């Protein structure tokens, strides 16, 4: 009898939640661990950041109400599948492994690798790489790109364990040029120690970098996926994404 009661109430709840979904606010799942400047809590305790603001802009474009729901990162895909959240929006790269489990919206941002070299060096990647010593951090998309795409460029690729070792050897002159995530490089060239260095260019789209970052969705949520893709397009056309990106990163990372 008890079991029947539980089953009945679960069924009722399920029916309620499915019928009421249109009116219910959508739950945007973000990582409970702050990931500044993409998602973090402001001084008054509310979540903000590039992805929080962008996500709310998507909801506005869809005319839907949304709530930010912090969820432990390691359990964020199960939470999506269980229905506790409706989408994942926290710099989740679209990868083949994840695509076997969940669906993705169109990518909404992409940070390519950026080349940094001395200001007084005439350098246009990838043509001028011949004979240069290029540093990358191993086990990153940039390392894969350097090995795969720049193999015949004539550059000598050196692999480091830590990003800071790469930066240091560039500043000390042991490396001619480095290739690393654009946002990190933006931060590097703003340092006093790197006053003589500048971003020389970006790496083009390449399979090594994946397809970019998209919203994670339940595979059966086709309607939401279609709405979101339209919303992403609208928000991009309005320039909202570019504005937010410039505000947070000083550069445009919207794809």
């Amino acid at each position, binding site marked *: 009898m008890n079991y029947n009661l539980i089953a009945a109430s679960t069924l009722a709840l399920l029916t309620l939640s499915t019928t009421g979904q249109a009116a219910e606010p959508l739950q945007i799942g973000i990582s409970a661990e702050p990931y500044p400047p993409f998602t973090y809590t402001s001084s008054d305790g509310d979540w903000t950041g590039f992805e929080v603001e962008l996500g709310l802009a998507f909801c506005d474009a869809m005319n839907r109400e949304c709530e930010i729901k912090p969820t432990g990162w390691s359990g964020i895909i199960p939470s999506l599948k269980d229905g506790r959240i409706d989408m994942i929006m926290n710099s989740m790269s679209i990868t083949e492994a994840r695509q076997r489990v969940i669906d993705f919206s169109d990518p909404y941002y992409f940070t390519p690798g950026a080349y940094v070299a001395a200001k007084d060096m005439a350098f246009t990647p990838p043509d001028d790489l011949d004979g240069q010593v290029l540093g990358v951090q*191993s*086990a990153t998309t940039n390392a*894969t790109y350097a090995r795969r795409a720049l193999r015949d460029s004539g550059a000598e690729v*050196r*692999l480091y364990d830590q990003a800071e*070792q790469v930066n240091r050897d560039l500043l000390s*002159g*042991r490396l001619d040029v480095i290739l690393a995530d654009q946002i990190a490089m933006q931060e590097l060239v703003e340092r006093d120690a790197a006053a003589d260095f500048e971003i020389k260019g970006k790496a083009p789209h390449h399979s090594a970098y994946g397809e970019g970052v998209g919203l994670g969705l339940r595979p059966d949520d086709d309607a939401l996926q279609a709405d979101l893709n339209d919303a992403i397009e609208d928000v991009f056309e309005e320039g909202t994404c570019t504005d937010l990106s410039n505000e947070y990163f000083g550069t445009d990372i919207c794809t």
Partner: protein
Amino acid sequence: MEFSWLSDPFYQSYLLEGFINTLLLVIVSAAGGLALAITLALARLKGPRPLAWCIHGFTTVMRGTPLLVQLFFFYYGVGRLLEGIPGIQESLIWPVLRDPFFYGALTFILSVGAYSGEVIRGALISVPPGEREAGRAFGMSPTQVFFRLWLPRAIQLCLPTLTGEMILLLKSIPLVSTIAMMDLLQAANIIRDEMFLVYEPLMLIAGIYLAMTVVLTLVLRQVEQRFPGMRPTRGRRLIPGRA
């Protein structure tokens, strides 16, 4: 177990590059290290007192600190001092100084020099003084006594220990993967990062190191057996025309 990457020429070229770099570094470090070891041993025995003390201090420091720490010290510490010297980045030796190979070889040469220097010093002491006196009595100069008699006799005594030191050197080489040098371990790490395989590439390079150690042991055993004085000299006339 997944070994399909073995047939990929892309990974093969990295493994080959890592293998060649490992081999080169062993050869350079062994040759430089042993030459330094002999110099240090002799200087400690026959050099002026202050010099002997300095070498004693150097040996203590090199043997008392981790090799990885020394490698970082030379690459990040000394390397930083060197690059600060005005004009050095335009000089002809800069391509050598900016290469991690230089810092790897430097560290290993100093390390081998410190360890093997003590081994050789002990061996030099073990050679009975009467043999040296005999050499002098034959009219050899002190230099001749050292190179023809004292040092060969000492090396006879410590060759098996030196063989062990060389094997230890060979197996220390993967440390240079931490200073951005393409060795076998870095090649294995590339395969790990791209194929998401951890054990298979490590097993391969472990096998390569094992094979290199076996070859090195066989070669050094031949050296031990052929080294003058290591084989019975029956029937051989030691001093032509006199015996």
